[in-house]
Every structure is written in C-alpha cells, then in structure tokens.
C-alpha cells in the first residue's frame, strides 16, 4: 500500500527529467532519492521514469483483485467506474481551442462541465461506503461534507464570472473576454480566488485532503480498493483537477487567448510556442550527451526530435494562417496557451500542497461556511452592482469593478474579524458542534 500511495507523484513529474550529472554508479540512486519510489529496487537500468509509469500501470491492471468480505460487491464494483466516467465525460465539453470538434457549440458548455464533474465525488462516497470498514466510511462522510460545503462557494464564484460573460457557451465566454479586453480574473479577482480555494477543497487536494489523510484514515475511502479500481480512482482524481483547472482557465484566465490578444505590437508573443519547443528540444540534446546508458541517450534524442517536429509544425502554421490552415493555426496556438494556463493552475495546487500544512476538519468547515460562502455571495452582489453602474449609469467599468472589489474585500475583513471574535467566545462549543455534525471521529 505504501508504494501505491506515493505513486501519484510520478504522473506529476512525468517530464523525462533525469539527473544525468551523476556518475554511472550513482545513477540508480536517482530513483532512491525521488519521491516516487522510496524503497523499490530499480527494475531496469535503462528504464526512465516515463517507462516506470507504464510499468506501474501494467502492474496495477494485472494485480490480484480482492474484495473485502463484508463489502457491498455491487457498489464496490460500480463506484470507481462512476468517478472515472464522470471525469472523462466532463472533459468532453472543455474547449481547448476556438475550433474544437467535440465542444464546438454546446449551449450550456460550462454548466455541463461543472455539473458532470460534480458526479466524481459520488463515486468516492459510494466506494468508501461499500468497503464497509471504519476508515473508508469516515473518508466517504468527509468527502460528502466537503463537497456539499464547497460546491456552493464554487458555484457562486462561477456566477460572478458568468455575470460578466453573459453566456454559458464555452467559446462565447472566451470571445467575450477578448472583446472586453480583459481576462475576468482582473475584473472579478475575488471570484477567481474563491473559486481557486473551493476547487482545491472539491478535488480533495492538500491542504484539504481529508477524505484520504494517511495519518488518520490510512487511505480513507480508497483503503480497500486496489489494482485497477484503485488506479481508476486515481485517474479520476487527476482528471478532476484538470477539469476544475480548465473551468477556471476558461472563465477567468481567458481560455485559449494569448496574453494581450488585442495588442498588435505584442503579436511577437505568437512566437513563444515555437521558441519554447525549440528550447525544450535543445535542452534534451544537451542532456542526451551526458547520459550514462545508450537507451537513455536515444530516448532523449527521440524527445528532442519530437519537440523539433512540433516546433516546425507551429512555425509553419503561423505564416500560413490564411484560409486553408486557419483552423490548424487556431487549434495549435490556442491549445498551447490553454494547456500552459492549465499547467499554471495545477502548479498553484501543487505549490499550496508543498507549502501549507493540512488543516483540521472543523477549520475546513468553518472556512467554508463562515467565510467563503458569505464572501462569494457578497461578491456576486457586488459584481452585479458594478455591472449595473456600468450599463445603467455609464460609469467607467474598471473603476466600478475596482470599487466593488474593494467593497468585497472590506466585507471579507469584517467577516474575518467577526468570525475571530465569535470563535474566541464560542470556540469550544463550535468545535464540538461541527465535529459532531460532520464526523463523529474527528478531533
């Protein structure tokens, strides 16, 4: 179990980055110091971590499938499938670029993504319950409480962005941001940050990873799941991170638009994807010379070649952007910026995970109910006021937005102060209250 709970690190660091500066005898130590496998023997000298991921996946698929004796077999079987199906289906409506076959014109695109991804925790809850062991049931309960508490916040945060966009169509949302000359993160900063926090809590990432805290619940809802079902859960987890990241990117970070899409003298930014790929390829070539084994060297050469080929495609698509390749150009460049923004969003997740210690469950609940939900509500009202000021009274939009954002932040300060006072006087009873209501075993 120990190696499985660490394995998630490998997809995050699947970049074929190898510390080739080590002399050959210590090259194996590379995987000893890595977070992925603390005590596993190195299976093959030549295998890179990229191949290690493949090997892990194969192992998980062929692992013996055990179902606990008292488990509810039907639910136990179906739960990981629910999570995985929901995760993949909701990705279907995400538009990576302006021209994208699947997601082209779903009228309610963004709502569809949010709605279907709300089914992912359902699989977690059912799976935790079905194993019929204490840790898993508590993990399931926590997951539910967390989902219900933070879904409201996320919903209101999205509403504050949608008020600005005035549509639910994914493509129209991004095009409105182009027309408005601003990403909505600048017009509704409070909305973006409340969504960020709520999305961390919804996807159960640290510091809010209560459903599967290893120090309290072994692996929480996933304790008794192994093999392919465990990996389905894990894939669903990562897919849901990508889903919330793409929702945040679409609504607040300008989707597939490059930075400053309307400023013509910044069109040189269009060269960034090509240069980025050429730099990545050059780095691989530079590293390839220092590899201890022939296989690693060849592997890096292959990666470098792939980078150069894609860079050439990017470079060719740019000048040929008139008619025949217009769509290809849009898709390539749009997808690059979109993926870059998603990566940045997920990097914030990882950054917080590495930086902050885990909260306590009652702290999480108090943050959600006492601060974030009122704040998100106030923010929606304030964004509405700003919009009304702009459209009815002709006020300057930026001024209106800044003033109302300040008002929201002031309200947040008041909320915090009020909450501190309240918790100072009623702390004991409050902690007892929330832990009784949400989780009999917490605290």
């Amino acid at each position: 179990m120990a190696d499985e709970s660490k394995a998630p690190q490998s997809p995050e660091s699947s970049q074929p980055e190898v510390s080739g500066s080590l002399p050959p005898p210590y090259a194996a130590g590379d995987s000893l110091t890595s977070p992925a496998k603390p005590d596993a023997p190195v299976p093959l000298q030549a295998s890179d971590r990229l191949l290690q991921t493949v090997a892990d996946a194969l192992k998980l698929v062929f692992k013996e499938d055990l179902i606990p004796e008292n488990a509810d077999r039907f639910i136990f079987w179906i739960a990981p499938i629910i999570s995985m199906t929901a995760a993949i289906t909701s990705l279907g409506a995400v538009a990576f670029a302006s021209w994208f076959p699947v997601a082209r014109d779903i009228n309610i695109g963004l709502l569809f993504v949010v709605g279907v991804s709300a089914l992912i925790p359902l699989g977690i809850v059912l799976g935790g319950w079905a194993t019929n062991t204490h840790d898993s049931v508590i993990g399931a309960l926590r997951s539910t409480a967390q989902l219900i508490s933070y879904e409201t916040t996320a919903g209101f945060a999205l509403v504050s962005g949608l008020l600005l966009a005035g549509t639910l169509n994914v493509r129209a949302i991004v095009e409105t941001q182009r027309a408005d000359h601003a990403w909505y993160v600048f017009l509704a900063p409070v909305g973006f940050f409340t969504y960020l926090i709520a999305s961390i809590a919804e996807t159960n990432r640290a510091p809010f990873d209560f459903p599967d805290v290893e120090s309290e619940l072994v692996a929480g809802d996933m304790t008794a799941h192994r093999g392919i079902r465990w990996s389905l859960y894990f894939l669903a987890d990562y897919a849901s991170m990508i889903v919330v990241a793409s929702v945040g990117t679409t609504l607040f970070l300008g989707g597939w638009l490059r930075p400053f899409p309307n400023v013509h003298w910044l069109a040189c930014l269009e060269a960034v994807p090509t240069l980025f790929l050429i730099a990545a390829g050059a780095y691989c070539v530079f590293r390839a010379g220092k590899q201890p084994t022939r296989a690693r060297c060849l592997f890096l050469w292959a990666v470098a070649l792939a980078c150069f080929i894609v860079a050439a495609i990017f470079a060719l698509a740019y000048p040929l952007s008139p008619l025949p390749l217009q769509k290809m150009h849009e898709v390539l460049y749009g997808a690059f910026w979109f993926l870059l923004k998603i990566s940045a969003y997920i990097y914030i997740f990882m950054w917080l995970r590495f930086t902050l210690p885990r909260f306590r469950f009652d702290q999480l609940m108090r943050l959600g109910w006492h601060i974030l939900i009122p704040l998100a509500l106030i923010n929606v009202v304030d964004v509405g006021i700003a919009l009304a000021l702009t459209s009815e009274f002709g006020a300057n939009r930026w001024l209106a937005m800044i003033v109302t954002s300040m008002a929201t932040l002031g309200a947040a300060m008041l909320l915090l102060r009020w909450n501190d006072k309240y918790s100072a006087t009623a702390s004991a009873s409050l902690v007892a209250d929330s832990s009784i209501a949400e989780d009999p075993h917490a605290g």
Partner: protein
Amino acid sequence: MLDSVIFYFFAGIAVISAALMITRRNAIHSAVFLITTLLATAGIFLQLRAEFVFVAQIILYVGGIMVLFIFVIILVRPDISLPQVRSRTHKWIALLVALVVGVEGGVVLWLARKLPGQGLLLPNPAPADKLPPNTEELARGLFGAYLLPFEIASVLLLVAMVGAVVMAKKRTDA
C-alpha cells in the same frame, strides 16, 4: 426514428431503475437506482432540447440532493436503526394511489391521441437551430413573467431552511 430509439432507451432505463429503487432492501442501493432514474430523466430533457433543465437536474438532484441523501443514509443507517413498518392499511393506501396515478396516466395518453403530430407517445422536438436558446428563455420566464411566483418560492424555501436550523438548534440546547 433515432429520436424514438433514444427516447425509449432513456425511458426504459428510468422505469426499470425506478422499479428497482422501490424494491431494493438496502437504502444505498435504492439511492443508486434513484440516481440512475434521475440521470435517465435528464437524458430525456436533453432530447427535448431543454439543455438547462438537463444540467440543472444533474447538478441539483444528482450532484447535490442525492449526495446529501447518501450522506444521511450512511450516518443514520436506516436499515439498522428504523424498525420495518408494515401493515395492511399501508398496502391498501398504496394500491389506491397506484390506481389513481395509473388512471391519470391513461387519461393523459388517451387525450394525447388527438393532439397534432404523433401525440405524447413519441416526442417530436423541433430542430435545435429553430429553438431560442433554452437558458435565456428560462431566465426571461423566471425573472420576467413569473417573477412573483419565483420569489415567493424562494422565500418559502428560505423560511423552511431557517425553520430547520431553529428546530435543530433547540434540540442541541436541550
């Protein structure tokens, strides 16, 4: 043709899982089949080009209410804690209700026979590009023509929520 195949597919799933939902002993199994019913109904909404209702059904009922149901079921464990209530009176009441609903459904279908087109049995939706955007239409209805009923319903829900909180609070104080 394809439309009716899709319709009967979703309708069949909805009916079968509804039947399974009321016959299961295990409350969680019932909840899972209820979720299946709700999803199948959502599919029918989508087929009728009511996209907003489709997503609202999934977000509210499946993502919100059913998760809350399951939360309560896991906490309270009705299979263990509640005694099974069974009596003859219940059976008679159930039979009566089933009869009334059955007759109602029959009357609706019989009346629908006379409607233009194919009636209610086979949905015959207009092509998607001829319909106004569903979300906007719904918003115009809710915040325009039916503003007062909508607000009254909101206040009613708020009252119910506050009432529930007050009642729960009393019990913990006592």
